[in-house]
Structures are given as C-alpha cells and as structure tokens.
C-alpha cells in the first residue's frame, strides 16, 4: 500500500474521530448546561409541537434570516441547500447497492454544487463590500469560506472537468468503513478535495460551525412560551431555593 493511501487512511480515521467525538462532547456540554430562565423570543409558540414547527421553519427556510436581510438569506440558503444535495449525492460512495433515491438525486446533486459555490462567493463578497460585515470579519471567517469554496471547486473539477477513478475511490471509502483498506487513486483534485474535507471535519467542533448543533439548543428559539402555566426551574436554582428556604 502506498504512503499516500496510508496517510489518507489515517487522516480520515482521525478526522472522523475528532468530528464525532468533538461534536458529541459539545452537544453533551450544551445538554448539561441548564437554561435557568424562560427566554423564548416572543411571540413564541405555546406548545411543544409549536416549537418543533418554529425550529423547522428556522432550519429549513432560515425564517429569521429572511426577515433580517434578503441578500444574506439568498446566498446562505443557496449554499446550505446546495451543500445538502451535494452531501446526499455523496451517500453513493458509502454503500453498495445504492438506495434508489440517492440515484435519483444524483443529477441534481451534481448541479447543486453550483448553488453551493455561488452562495459561498456571495457571502464572501459581502465580507469585502459591506462595511459593517467587513468590520466584524476575522481571518478565520475568510479561511472558512476559502476552505468550503476549495472543497466545492475541487469536487466540481472532478465532476465536470477531470473525472477521477470513481470505482477505485468507492473501494477506498468502503475499505475505510469495513477496515479492509484499499488504495486511493493519486488524483490531485481528489487529494485536495479529501484533504480539505478532513480539515473541515477536524475544525468543526472547535469553530463557528457549531452553529449547526447550536441552533437546536438556542433557548430563544427552542423554549415553549408557557411560564405562567408551568414552573420552569434549573437544578442549580432549585438547590439555591432549598438553601435559602
């Protein structure tokens, strides 16, 4: 087995561990930290079903962002839903046989990469063109966009310009999954693509990408507006009450 294959094999195991372990730890931390007070941004739903509906509108349509700024909404939505379709298309590399709906999405997923990259470039342009956004942008904001654009463009190069050996790639991925390691095709675009994806996975739990799990834990969005009907109290606040009683 080539050195290259060994490096990428190890890289992907490390990246997967960091990604899953790091994310799980963050989610554990969020779960463990109580929200001591009722702070839904009102008007807010008065039932749990209502909260699920509110959250779904946020996650699927970016409702608050839509209210806020149409440009960020357009570019953000293009990027995220382009990315979603692209990710779904990639399921085919992880299974044999491939689910029919993954096959069905294949052509859409291919062209969704344009949505994704256009969205990213739009968001990036705002970091230069809008003085307020320029003021708040940090080097890591630019690097994150560069990383995602790099992943998108290197992937599109393989889809539309210089095809890589898909059969060998799939063997490599399945090999990783079943601990039956196979050689990785030494195609520069593929190596760039996979390398950047591994970096993305590794930085995920220590970066602003935490907005993905974060939104589900956001008390201003996930709380039911029923403070008069149900007493809401955090464990540390209840302990304080017992102490002072």
């Amino acid at each position, binding site marked *: 087995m080539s050195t290259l294959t060994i490096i990428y094999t190890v890289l992907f195991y490390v990246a997967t561990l960091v990604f899953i372990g790091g994310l799980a730890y963050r989610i554990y931390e969020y779960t463990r930290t109580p929200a001591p007070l009722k702070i839904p941004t009102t008007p807010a739903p008065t039932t749990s079903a209502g909260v699920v509906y509110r959250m779904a509108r946020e996650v699927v349509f970016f409702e608050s962002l839509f209210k806020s700024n149409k440009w960020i909404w357009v570019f953000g939505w293009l990027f995220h839903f382009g990315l979603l379709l692209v990710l779904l298309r990639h399921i085919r590399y992880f299974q044999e046989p491939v689910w029919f709906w993954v096959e069905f999405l294949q052509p859409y997923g291919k062209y969704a990469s344009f949505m994704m990259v256009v969205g990213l470039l739009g968001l990036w342009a705002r970091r230069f063109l809008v003085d307020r956004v320029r003021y*708040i942008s940090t080097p890591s904001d630019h690097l994150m966009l560069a990383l995602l654009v790099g992943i998108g463009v290197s992937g599109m190069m393989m889809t539309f310009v210089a095809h890589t050996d898909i059969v060998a790639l799939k063997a490599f991925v399945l090999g990783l999954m079943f601990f039956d390691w196979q050689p990785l095709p030494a195609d520069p675009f593929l190596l760039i693509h996979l390398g950047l994806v591994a970096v993305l996975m590794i930085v995920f739990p220590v970066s*602003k990408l935490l907005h993905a799990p*974060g939104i589900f834990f956001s008390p*201003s969005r996930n709380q039911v507006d029923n403070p008069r009907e149900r007493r809401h*109290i955090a464990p540390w606040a209840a302990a304080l009450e017992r102490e002072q009683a």
Partner: protein
Amino acid sequence: MAAPDFEIPQFQEHAVLDIPKIKEGAMSHIKSFVAGQSAQEYLGYPWELGENWKERAIERMGEVLKKYRSVRVFLDACVHCGACTDKCHYYLGTADPKNMPVARQELMRKVYRRYFTFGGKYFPWLVGAEDLTEEVLNDWYNYYHECSECRRCSVFCPYGIDTAEITMAGREILNYVGMGQKYSNEILVKVQKVGNNLGLPGPALEDTLAGLEEDIEADTGVPVKLPLDQKGAEILLVTPSADFFSEPHVESLIGYAKVFHAAGASWTLSSLASEAGNFGLFNGNYETMRKVAMRIRDAALELGVKRIIVGECGHAWRVAYSYWNTLTGIGYGGEDPYSQMLQKQLDHRYPQPMHICEYTWDLIQKGVLKFDKSKNDHRIITFHDSCNVARASRMGNEPGGQFTIPRNIIRAVANNFYDMDPNTIGESTYCCGGGGGLLTDDLMEVRVKGALPRMNAFNAVVQQNGVNFLALICAICKAQFTKVFPYYGFDMSMVGGVHQLVSTAIELD
C-alpha cells in the same frame, strides 16, 4: 433642557432609517457613572478593581458559562453573517460599530475564545481571540451600558442569539470585579431597603394616594379609592413606583383605579411591594433578581390576595410574566412545596400574574366598562410596543396578544388611532432608547441618539396623520420619551399611558 453638547440626529423622510456607514469610536467617550462603595457593598460586590481582577473575571465567566446555556450557545454559534448589524437602535443612532449586536457580543466572545476554546488558546490571531486587559474591560463597561437589552437583534438572528444575555453576563462579571453601574445598583439598593426604586417611604406613599383620591373625586365626583396594604383584598396591584409620582405615569395609575372601581373589584396596593420594576434583570444576577421578586411574593402572602396584577411597566412585565413563577412560585405547575404554598392561595381561574391590559381588555369584552370615546377625540394616537413586552413576554392566550390587546383597548376608548411603520412596531419595535438600566442623565447622549429610529418613525405618523399622542405601557418608555421628545422638537405632553386614555374615556357611576 440644558443645551446638549452633542449633535441631535436629523429626521429622514422615510419612516425607516437608512443604515449609516460605520464610524469607529463614535461613542467610546461615553461612560456611565461607576457605582461607589456603599451600593457595591450592599449588593455583595467589590467597589474597585483588586489586584486579581482578571482571574476573578475569568472565574466568573466560567461560572456563568456553566449556569447559562444561552451564554454558552450564543458565544459558540455566531458565524459573523452580519444579519444583526443594522438592527440595533444604538448603532442606527450612533454609527459606532461596537454598537452592532455582533460586535457588542464580540467584546465578550474574543475573551471567551482566548480562555475557553481550543482555537483561541492556540491560534488567537486567527479566530480574533484577545487577552482580557483593562482596556477590554473598559470597553465592556462602556458598551454593555450602551445596550438596552431590548432583544431586537434576537428576532433577526438566524440562531436567535440574544445580545441581552451577553450584556447581562457582561454586567454580572463587571460587578463581580468591582465595576458596577451607579444608576442601576443604587436603585437595586433602594428597592431592597425602602421597597421601591424611587426610595419612597410608606407614609409618603400613603399621602400621595390620599391626594390622588381627592383629585379624582374633585374631577369626577366619584369616590374612587386607591387602597394601600388592605388585607383580604382580592387583587394586589404591583406597579412601577414612577406611577405614584411622575408625570405622565400617574395618569395611568388613576386609570387603573377607575377600572377597578368600575368593575367593583376589591384591590390593594402594597407598601412592601410598591415597585413592580426589577433591575436585577438588567444586571443578570439571578439571586438579586430573585430577592427583589420575593418582595412581591411576601406581600401577596401577607395580604392574602387571590390575584396579582401588574401595572404598565415593560421590564417588570417581563420579570413578572416570564420569571416570577420560576423565581418565586407565582404562577402554576410547581410541584415543590415552596411554590405550592402560594399557589393554593391564588385563584386558579385567572392567569397569575396578569397584566393590567389583560384585565381591562377582559372587562371591556365582558361589557363591564362603559366609555365615551369622544372624550379622547382631541387626541390622535399611536402606540409604541415596549421591547420587553413585545419580545420577552405575552398577554392573553395567543402568541402576539401583547400587540393586539393594548391596541384593542386604545380602539375601544378612542376614535383616532394610527400605527407607525410596520417595520418599527410589533416584534420589530425599536426600543425607546432608555431601557435596560440606561435611563440616567449621564447617558443622555446615548439615550437621545438611541431614540432616533423610534423618533423617526413617530415623526412620520406626526407628519402624515397628525398624530399628537404616543401611548405607552412602560414606565421607562414614559420617562425616556418625556425627556427625549424636546430634543427632537416635540412637546413632552404628547407622551402618555394606555390607561391614561382609559381614564379619560371611562364612565363612572
């Protein structure tokens, strides 16, 4: 009004302001007075930076991160998308970029990153992490006292990040290292020592209420009472202390009394709980907020009331509606003996606590109250949604009742009503500019400039519809607009309460 030593912003033609270009440092010269020894000591905080202030600050931040999911998630989740950058009234009025919600959060986030995250510990330059220095701490002090905790940014953030939570955490840490704000902290002392924010002792309150009874009787010929500390009354009214002494606040107090009279209700005020306001909210300290809230519970138990109703006050209603049940067990659904004691006493047929607007609207719907709307015909009215009522609480059973109920009352008692531009009311309402502990003269420049988005939308209805009355349901809004209106060329008599309108039109027998 003394001549201001700053420029008063100009109105624009459209109700919604253009977004200004950033002007770095535009408001960095503003520093609210720092609290002295006595107030800090009473609240259990130091009154000057000790040698180890930095360690203490980081330690406190760590504790807050463990206790408040909001702070932890909000510090992690921001992607710097920019959606909030043009949403803060202080940014729109001052153009200081540190008044953009994200930048205000960033003052804390950069320190959080430095001491609590992997990226910030090892690659601070990359992720915008920074050491906590005295300069940073001073920035916190300035800009966490240029935030009214109005939550407008949280409406527009795709993750619901609420800068108010960060501001509160920032003020708590500042207090903990000895940099409290004079205005808020002195009020927190007065409310706990004397019973209200104005520091008004019981006998003075009694005199005031007796005087008001005389005035009302002279005015209407009807003996409307304002009972104090009446044991066995059915309803306890808790209202901001400004309602007893300030204009136009007192006109609403007269309005509540007339409503109770017309409904034949048995009600009382309490000298122990002669203040609905709870500045503990502004400082983000749970225990202080709880102590202040406990006065209400104590008064309710002592007087044996069945219902608790809260007067026109924005942040007080937030604390009452959203937090009282948590802090003191006023409300329902508590399974612990602590909250059940009070819950046995309260009347389960009504929500506890209830807003005075909910109460009045309920009576109007039942046909109990009679009005002569024409008595308000000299007024052309608009209504300002107060931030804490709009975005941090509710009235009635439906989401959004906090918008419809006060407007329904106004329409029931007056003929001329016009709303301001829809982008500036409801959940998108602009803060008056004086909320969250900023209602102090040392922040006058912040208050006047921060009021610009609201004043601009108000000016639009004045020009188009001839509006001459701004109806409010918040003591801070009333005090702020009374003070700020003259700066913008309006007469302060245009400011008033919703129950002032009720008071004008109600028919008593």
